[in-house]
């Protein structure tokens, strides 16, 4: 997908490119934007209190993912995969195999990974346009 097609929403490609998958992708982008903002802002606050750097960094990952999802760019998946892998590494560094402790660290991020992965067909189609 090019900037040109992105900015030409209203034209003839709209019907094929902006089906239900596209709008679900945009919805996911909105959700990740909201969570990304909250986690980034809270993460900065936590750093200012002397706490973990993870959340601010993960917040950036979420915001970038949201940005690329808005652009319907495959970079969204790559960026989030990196964020998720970083999360995985951090989570095991913090608590190892304590699965109850992993619940807040890995469950939601893994759901997000699956959701972002599910947008790949939409992103591919958009890139091919």
């Amino acid at each position, binding site marked *: 997908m090019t900037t040109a097609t992105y900015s030409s929403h209203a034209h003839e490609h709209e019907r094929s490119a902006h089906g239900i998958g596209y709008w679900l992708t945009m919805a996911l982008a909105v959700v990740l934007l909201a*969570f990304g903002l*909250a*986690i980034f802002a*809270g*993460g900065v*606050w*936590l750093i200012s*209190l*002397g*706490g*973990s750097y993870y*959340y601010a960094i*993960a917040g950036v990952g979420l915001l970038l993912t949201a940005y690329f999802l808005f652009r319907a760019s495959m970079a969204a998946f790559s960026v989030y995969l990196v964020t998720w892998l970083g999360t995985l590494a951090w989570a095991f560094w*913090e*608590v190892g*195999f*304590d*699965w*109850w*402790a*992993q*619940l*807040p*660290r*890995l*469950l*939601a*991020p*893994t*759901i997000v990974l699956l959701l972002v992965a599910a947008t790949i067909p939409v992103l591919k189609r958009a890139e091919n346009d």
Partner: protein
Amino acid sequence: MASRHLATLTLALGLGCVSAVPAALAQQTSSDPAPADPAAGQSTLPPVPADGDGERPAVAPGAAPGAANEGGAETAGIGTDRSQPQATQAVGDDWPYYGGGPKAQRYSPLDQINTGNVGNLERAFVYRTGDMPSERAKGKYAWEGTPLKVGRSLYMCSAENILISVDATTGKENWRYDPKVSDDAIPYSASCRGVAYYVNPQAGDDAACKTRIIEGTLDARLIAVDAKTGEPCEDFGDNGAVSLWDGIGNKVPGWYAVTAPPAIVRGVIVTGAQVKDGEAEDAPSGVIRGYDAVTGKLAWAWDLANPELTGEPADGQTYTRGTPNMWTAPVGDEKLGLVYLPLGNSSVDYYGGNRSDAENEWATSLVALDVTTGKPAWHFQTVHYDLWDYDLGSQLTLVDFPTDKGKVPAVILPSKQGDLYILDRRTGESLFPVKSVDAPKGGVEPENLSPTQPTSAYHTLRKKRLTEKDMWGATPLDQLWCRIEFRRANYDGFFTPPSADKPWIQYPGYNGGSDWGSVSVDPKNGILIANYNDIPNYNRLIARKKADEMGLKPINERAKEDNGSIPAKAEGAGDPQAGAPYAIDVNAGWRSSLTGMPCTEPPYGGIRAIDLATGETLWDEPLGEALRNGPFGIASRLPLTIGTPNNGGPLTTAGGLVFVAAATDDLIRAIDVKTGEVVWQDQLPAGGQATPMTYEVDGRQYLAISAGGHHFMETPVGDYLVVYALPQNAN
């Protein structure tokens, strides 16, 4: 007490197999080995015979005691002679005391139900007391009852103190006596943990009230009824009742209430009362009183701040107000003539600047009182200058403690901080070193804080200090919020003092460690069983001006109508502490303001087996499944052992089993005492926040647990006594 709301969502994602939480090992406090705490274990007891104190032979109800009764010089009226031990009843076929036998070990020698056949247990009967909360009392019920069993009858009190006897094999009601307790007498909870059984050694076998059932009520009366008929004992007080309000001051219903069974030692009924926490410094006295078990006459009073006053105060006077009280169950030693009183804190809990020296001397201490005189023999303080509501809540357990020099008569003293102390019950001296650790400084009254605090070198149930990574949640977002709360609070570990500028973290919280459920001892195998909580509280002092703006008023200034309509809340969640410069706000269990889930990761409770002789951990498992917990109060229905908050004690039997409910999953379970493995469980019809008991009739062993629920544990309220046995033809 504390709370829960655990949580889990795991459903869809197969986030890997959720393994059992690794057994946490006993964490030893890592301070320098310090000399014994100087303020602990002071002894003023004259020497007493040091021979063994094995379970005295059982005396059937009605049998004459070995002791001579001619004396009685000290005793008013026809009261009993307190100079000699009276007969005790053995635990076995019967369960004659709240804690089982006279030693309150919560242990039964019965073994018909054992590790081999426990899986076959089925319900023998379910009895319902009929005592369910009225509209007005909704959200304030927490029955917590454990019945007694003597002969062929069970004896119990319902949540609002209805005395009941049922046939122990069928649940058919023999009699009931309703003392008509009003809903406005409910303090924190409508609880009646149990009753006491007493045999009048002076009465003829057929005399009325030869055997009697005695309880303390929420509206602060002692009630005595005939165990055979349920008729009030005419010889006891005013037609079977004695008012405990005498000498306490203005009668404010709900402020002064009895929720635990009294101890009866040498014919003296010993009771304290719950003084509702957090109301005002000028609160009802914590006076301990002894009453003649036959006549109901006041035998003595012990007012710790006015030791000269041993009778009733003069007209218009009261026992010293605001002093540390005893709300839990005492236990006695007939032979030594001592009664062991686990005292709570002064009124109020979270500010101490106005406390007297006497309060500071006795608060949160175990006190051994001589029942013949009402004078203290020794005491052992578990917290100096308690600012954390670390009341001693567990009934003491008497043991013949194995040492190099033979068996020593000892008591096991559990505490809310998680420390278990083993004390020589004759002298109060600890059999293991009592360490003195440096306490955190700061808070609103740094000049008053104790620089050191005691901990036990024998064993502690307390886990290591919290760190930011122990914060929990359902998602990274709420976990992040909890991390922010953690970093914003004052927290310098165990005993962080109360603060007003910022919240502070109290860990363990006021639910323990060990609370009223206490511990159990298997004397045969030398194993101590303790279930415990592992939950912090997130607290903050509120300056008086702000508290006034919030409209926080003590119970005596609130309109009576308000008291009825104010919904029950967690203890301390906005308590006025009138008279102190600060009110208090407690977030019990430190629940996230976003989701209602705890801010710290599970487990929130566990059960541990400890080698009695050495204090070493044998096994340690989380207690309770996640069934009923989840974010936003939604039950997850996950049958995964997460370790929930729990309230209620364990029962250990010679069948190699520990029976325990207590957790928030409404299950009663049997655990193999050797391995910690759950070998049987059953779903109760309501919350099992009570200690189970067992007994035998006609060669058949029964297991009984009350399912009364608990408002604060957020379990369903009920009025059930659920009784199990093995199928009859299978034995």
